[in-house]
């Protein structure tokens, strides 16, 4: 089983992880894999609860927002959780975010066998119900990039 987990909050650019999951659900390329080899989850700031979502999945892809100073909409890619530890670009609630959850998961042996993390560069001050216009324009490109990563993983099962 491959789980793709989008993380975010409901407003502004921080919802990009949630919106990408919505878009992946509509993808014809992924349709035949859903409910058997592929599960898509959109979660609102799960904190340490993220670890419980890994249950039953050998492979997990996570998509979350980042603010690193790179260009808006840039897709960052980390092939495992160790590579993330020195990265301070993920967003936090109460000082706890994706990096902290994954760091906690290692000693608890709760991480999946294979983990891939995508970070989407967002505008941290974009407020309101929608994505910022620039990130909105990038969304179709991001969807294609993520699907390109998902398909080989699914076909290798």
């Amino acid at each position, binding site marked *: 089983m491959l789980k793709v987990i989008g993380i975010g*909050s*409901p*407003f*502004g650019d*921080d919802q990009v992880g949630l919106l990408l999951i919505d878009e992946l659900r509509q993808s014809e390329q992924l349709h035949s894999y859903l409910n058997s080899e592929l599960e898509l989850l959109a979660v*609102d*700031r799960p*904190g*340490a*609860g993220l*670890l*419980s979502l890994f249950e039953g999945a050998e492979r997990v892809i996570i998509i979350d927002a980042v*603010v690193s100073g790179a260009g808006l909409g840039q897709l960052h890619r980390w092939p495992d959780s160790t590579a993330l530890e020195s990265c*301070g*670009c993920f*967003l*936090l*609630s*109460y*000082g*706890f*975010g994706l990096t*902290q959850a994954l*760091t*906690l998961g*290692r*000693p*608890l*042996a*709760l991480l999946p066998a294979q983990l891939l993390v995508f970070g989407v560069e967002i505008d*941290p*001050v974009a*407020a309101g119900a929608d994505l910022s216009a620039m990130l909105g324009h990038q969304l179709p490109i991001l969807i294609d990039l993520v699907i390109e990563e998902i398909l080989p993983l699914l076909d290798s099962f």
Partner: protein
Amino acid sequence: MLARVEGEGALEIEVRDGKIEELKLRIFEPPRLFEKFLEGRSYDEVADIVARICGICPVAYQMSAVHAIEQVFECDPGPWVREMRRLLYCGEWLESYGLHVHLLALPDYFGFSSVAEMASKFPDEVKRGLALQGIGNEIVRFLGGRSVHPVGVRVGGFYKAPAAAEAAVLLEKVRQQLKHAEALLRWSAALDLPASRQNFVSVSTRHTDEYPMNEGHIVSDAGHDLSIDKFEAHFKEHQAPHTTALHCHLDGRPYLVGPLARLNLNHDLLPDAVKSLLHECGIVMSWMLTVASCRPPLSRPLAKIRPASKRICTTSCWPMGLRMMMPPCVCVPRW
């Protein structure tokens, strides 16, 4: 700088000759101004707005708001709503205290830099804490629609009643977690905690026949037994110059609220099974409140346990909408 408080804060301690001369807890996040957000809003918007005060304890604010409005309307939503609100509150206590104990307090107590470091030595205990926090989140989601900033509460009840089948599934999950709650109490009671004898006044609500959550009088172990409408006559908030968090005194004295104060004042109302477990664990509650009696303040502690919570929640809570960058800290507001 305090890293693991609910909000941003710093602690200044001045020690001379081994004695603390001055201690200031500075909460320096900006004032939230929720009172101003609420001005001009309809009564039915209030529950959703105040849920944003805190990402960890939103139910407390929702319950206070809807009960106040229902009091104005002289509206009684009935026994089912009352019971479900208690359930919702239990969910919040489970997730909030589960998080506080395992992710915030215990790493500090054991001297670990983080819960991840603590997890290397206490993996089963940390997993148990995450499971208890998780079931709390599920209960809040069950009635609130989502676990972060729930939206199910309204004046008069809930927007949607959960399905009975969903309730049955949740009930089974809760039953499975009882063993974890019991194990946590046994484990905590066996910790080698230093004796802490402090003289403080406990304040909580008190109900005639149940452990208090949403209803009752305001009582203290300094002899107070006040109806809710007497709150403003006895509790006075003031601004301390070193912090953005308002301070509050009861008849001119500082006091403690929260789980320990509630337990100190209401342990006789705990379910029998919990009382037995406390007894088994050697936790002795040495005093019982007699409501409406006026007595001189007693020496503390009442419970021979370390305070389980040092939360400052009234004004230092963060909305989960504030996801932070660190370091340096840059607020990323999401409303």
